[in-house]
């Protein structure tokens, strides 16, 4: 129904009078901090559940809740996530050389008494985290030893890292404050507000590239050699839902940063629509011509989204992809 002109004028006036505030303080407050808080809460619940039982069936709901929560913040590879190898240890993927399975086998073959949360914190980042748990709960082949002590230590280690991440963003010395105080005396992390926008823009771009090249690209392999076995979190059946959750997280981050990116947000919705309609939870279809085409179409949509964001967001936020980072020599 066409709206009367008076109402349109009123709406326009309201829009001018109270523009939606959106910038990095809103992104931090509305998306990043709640995202990390939710992950810390979910990881703590998974730890509690694991101490009560280490059966896959009992742990499955808490495992998925924690994994869901991580995917929403997984692209935020900055600050506390990059310290002590946390993001690597929480989700060590891709792992083409099977480093995780090897390091974990060594842990399983060792003394169970050494499998404390403190001991595990010193172990290889490849052996730990969500995929470490996945290998124990849904083993590809029978495990050589009782996995229970390692399940409990891995869950506790994960909960500790999740809490450290949440805490690392909060408080006067937290990473959120470093962003919010950009450009003030003594802030060596961010020399200006535009640097914070640039950093978040870079994360969005890199996150989309990771989805297209790794999460979709690895199982796609080549036409002659599809690699469905390389899909992320295949054993727990999460490959597609991880992509959906990550796209949703990146969309929320983008919208909180600037709602004045209609093409980018529409491209997000298009890619999300394709992903949600894809009835192929672990991309097993890449081995068939028809199934492969659907995953390729999703990959193309994510790449188109990345390219749209690179133009529209960069213009809107007055940022770029890095003078040297984008060049290379």
């Amino acid at each position, binding site marked *: 129904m066409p709206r009367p002109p008076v109402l349109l004028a009123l709406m326009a006036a309201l829009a001018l009078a109270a523009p939606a505030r959106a910038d990095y303080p809103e992104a931090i407050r509305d998306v990043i901090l709640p995202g990390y808080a939710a992950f810390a809460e979910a990881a703590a619940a998974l730890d509690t559940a694991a101490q009560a039982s280490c059966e896959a069936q009992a742990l499955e709901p808490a495992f998925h809740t924690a994994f869901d929560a991580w995917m929403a913040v997984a692209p935020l590879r900055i600050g506390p996530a990059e310290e002590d190898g946390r993001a690597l*240890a929480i989700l060590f993927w891709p792992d083409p050389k099977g480093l995780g399975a090897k390091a974990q086998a060594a842990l399983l073959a060792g003394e169970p008494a050494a499998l404390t949360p403190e001991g595990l914190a010193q172990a290889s980042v490849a052996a730990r985290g969500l995929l470490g748990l996945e290998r124990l709960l849904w083993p590809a082949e029978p495990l050589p030893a009782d996995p229970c002590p390692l399940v409990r230590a891995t869950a506790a280690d994960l909960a500790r890292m999740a809490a450290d991440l949440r805490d690392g963003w909060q408080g006067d010395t937290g990473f959120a404050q470093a962003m919010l105080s950009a450009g003030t005396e003594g802030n060596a*992390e961010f020399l200006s507000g535009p640097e914070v926008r640039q950093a978040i823009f*870079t994360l969005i771009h890199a996150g989309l590239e990771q989805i297209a090249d790794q999460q979709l690209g690895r199982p796609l392999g080549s036409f002659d050699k599809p690699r469905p076995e390389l899909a992320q979190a295949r054993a727990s059946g999460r490959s597609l839902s991880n992509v959906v959750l990550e796209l949703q997280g990146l969309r929320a981050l983008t919208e909180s940063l600037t709602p004045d990116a209609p093409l980018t947000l529409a491209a997000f919705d298009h890619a999300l629509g394709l992903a949600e309609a894809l009835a192929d939870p672990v991309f097993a279809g890449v081995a068939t011509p028809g199934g492969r085409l659907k995953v390729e179409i999703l990959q193309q949509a994510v790449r188109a989204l990345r390219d749209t964001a690179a133009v529209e967001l960069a213009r809107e936020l007055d940022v770029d992809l*890095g*003078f040297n980072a984008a060049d*290379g020599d």
Partner: protein
Amino acid sequence: MTSRRAFLAGLAAAAVPKPGWAAAGSPAFLAAGKRGEAHELCGLSATGGIVFRQPLPARGHAAAAHPLRAEAVAFARRPGVFALVLDCATGAVRHRMTPPEGRQFNGHGVFSADGAVLMTSEVVAEGSAGRIGLWDGATYARIGEWDSGGIGPHDMKRLADGRLIVANGGIKTDPGDRTKLNLKAMRPNLTLLSQEGAVLDREELAPEMHRNSIRHLALVGEGVAFAMQWEGDPAEPVPQLGLWTPGSAPRLCPPLEAEMFAMQGYAGSIAATQDALAITSPRGGVVMLFGLDGTPLATHRRADVCGIASAGDGFLASDGAGALLRVTVEGIAPLAQGGPQWDNHLVALGS
């Protein structure tokens, strides 16, 4: 550990007066950058102040500073079809160097100690076979060329006795657009050339590292530290730093496990002080510090950081946002902001 001889040589190099450079503000470093759409070459003081700015017609890569005169040779980005000899005091372009037919500059050059000869890394455009171009250091006339000992040479460093170490990156590129043509078969190497250009030593990396392109060098003791760029699967953790003393095998220096992907497989620049090495990754946004024996010391974060040079007991770093930063094991702190978008390299005078 630094040998006594290398230490004294370092002091001597630092103490050599460069009277000609006083006319250009006595810069300690040269760096290329971009301001708006304009490119420029700047001289920087030891503390990051800009002491001269001269326009460049296009994006630069690295520069070579004449050891005596206030002259810089600014190399274009690859595939380099020109280099300019700039009078850094007046901005006048004294010479425009063009590689011979069928050759391209590859971004780096170095003068002999007395400034009489300029050596430039070059490739034969078709096939990327490496050459070291030789130019008269006074007239900038072409006086000859050597075989670089490999494919796609990039950086090179002159040892105190005049021998030259070349990083042959191993990558064949399309002469028109830098497309990489041989990633499956690439075999980078380090080559030591005599003062006459004879190959004295040449070392390749282990077979599983054949996709780790050796690109940049810093003098350390009687040899070099080298920085690499991984052309293999980005999910494979590989070192970006190595050490080589001619006569021995090169040794790779992995970072701490938690930092194994921090550089994203890409080191853009390298520098050495008397007791530490630094490599930068603009892609990962990190500066990584190591001891001279390759022990990891620290990792500092700074978006789009690339240029790095030794500065006293620490390092000076530059980034694509126009900041110059002081880097030590303890941390990274801004010294100056608002400069041009600094390009790949900071070149220390007297190195």
